[in-house]
């Protein structure tokens, strides 16, 4: 998949990964994510009960931990980006691909732990398809409404800098959706437990195949419309 990504998008994805690994706040965000990830695996190994839904919430939490502040991570460089020959469409596509890749990597890391329980593996695979098919688009769209700067060198702990109403909504909707899925799955009889993940996975797949371009254009338009607001909000970075 990576081999088919054009060099401009690869360049943008690598750039975004460097933002994460070389700056304090996004790096801390990733660290929190990994701690949570390890905790769920330990829980799974020690308790051994059905926790695929917790796994689902865990791997989708990348969207509320990192995705909600997309664009704001680059507050400091926003003037620079807009003055260079970088197409906004490529930036949007790069961010969506990055979120999808992170989600897939963390899903693949969970697979060995679920190998002996095919039902969980199937459910989690379907929910991952839903994750990568829906959330990258909705989260990058919601993030395109953000105009609050984020200072990358600050620590993450108790730091809500950059969160606006919509980005907070973007963050918590992922958890809320996870809880809804848990409740529905608990209610339905055991023989139908794959129905909910199946429907969601199909929706995700259809969204990628049919509406990917629509979302990217919609986000691009929104960014162009809100360009000056965002530039002004992200400026004065000390």
């Amino acid at each position, binding site marked *: 998949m990576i081999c088919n990504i054009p060099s401009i998008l690869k360049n943008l994805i690598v750039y975004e990964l*460097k933002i994460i690994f070389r700056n304090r706040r996004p790096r801390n965000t990733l660290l929190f994510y990994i701690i949570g990830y390890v905790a769920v695996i330990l829980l799974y190994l020690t308790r051994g009960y059905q926790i695929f839904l917790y796994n689902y919430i865990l791997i989708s939490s990348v969207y509320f931990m990192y995705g909600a502040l997309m664009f704001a991570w680059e507050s400091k460089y926003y003037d620079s980006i807009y003055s260079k020959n970088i197409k906004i469409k490529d930036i949007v596509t790069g961010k969506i691909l990055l979120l999808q890749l992170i989600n897939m990597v963390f899903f693949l890391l969970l697979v060995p732990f679920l190998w002996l329980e095919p039902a969980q593996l199937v459910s989690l695979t379907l929910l991952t398809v839903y994750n990568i098919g829906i959330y990258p688009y909705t989260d990058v769209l919601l993030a395109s409404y953000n105009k609050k700067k984020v200072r990358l060198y600050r620590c993450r702990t108790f730091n809500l800098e950059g969160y606006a109403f919509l980005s907070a909504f973007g963050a918590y909707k992922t958890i809320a959706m996870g809880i809804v899925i848990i409740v529905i799955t608990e209610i339905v009889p055991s023989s139908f437990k794959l129905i909910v993940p199946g429907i969601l996975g199909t929706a995700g797949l259809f969204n990628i195949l049919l509406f990917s371009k629509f979302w990217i254009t919609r986000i691009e338009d929104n960014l162009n419309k809100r360009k000056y607001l965002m530039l002004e909000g992200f400026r004065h970075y000390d």
Partner: protein
Amino acid sequence: MIRIENLIKEYKPDFKFEIPGLKINKEACTAIVGNNGAGKTTLLNLILDLVEPDTGIIEINSINNKKTEWKAFTGSYLDENFLFDFLYPLEYLKFISVFYNIGNDELIKRLELFRNFIEPDLIFKNKKLIGYLSEGNKEKLGIISALIINPLLIILDEPYSRLDPTSRTILSKILIYYKVALKSTLLISSHDLYNLAHICDRIILVEDGKVKLDELTSATTFSRLNNYFREKSCFNKR
């Protein structure tokens, strides 16, 4: 190269930037001078479409600056935030080059021009992230990043301000090379009257958001501008 018409940008409560009409000729070097807060950077921001004007039209090579096509042939460096400080110098230059279809070999070849301007080890040895470079070296790297794409239009904001005397002289020679050999159009804002008077064909003096003086440079330009700013200085007033 640049055409400005009825341009107004107001910053409440007390600053109004106003240019009824202005043309910057192709293949010429135009200097913008003026005291702090006169509106020099505002003008450059407006040209680069980083600030929304209240009214007016700006065209770059007959392309409205609201479109993006002009970015393919424009190199600019306004301030430190134009640099991605979490990257190494060569990483940054390579990152930019991708968007202008400049291959790695070509990039290395073009960097030869700046051999005396910046320490080659600083670029090629990847010792320090941009954020840890000295102010002068950041300025140099920013200027190189604007020039490396061999742009038709070069926009620089106070490029001499953080440079040592030797580097200032080298920069003037580099800018003359771009103007004469590559036929680039240069628009430079600076307080360095001496260097501007020597490399620019035209001086535009901005004061309180308005063009106060617009004339071709001559043998007396430097001393006349010097006298003008000396007279403005309260310290020298009797």
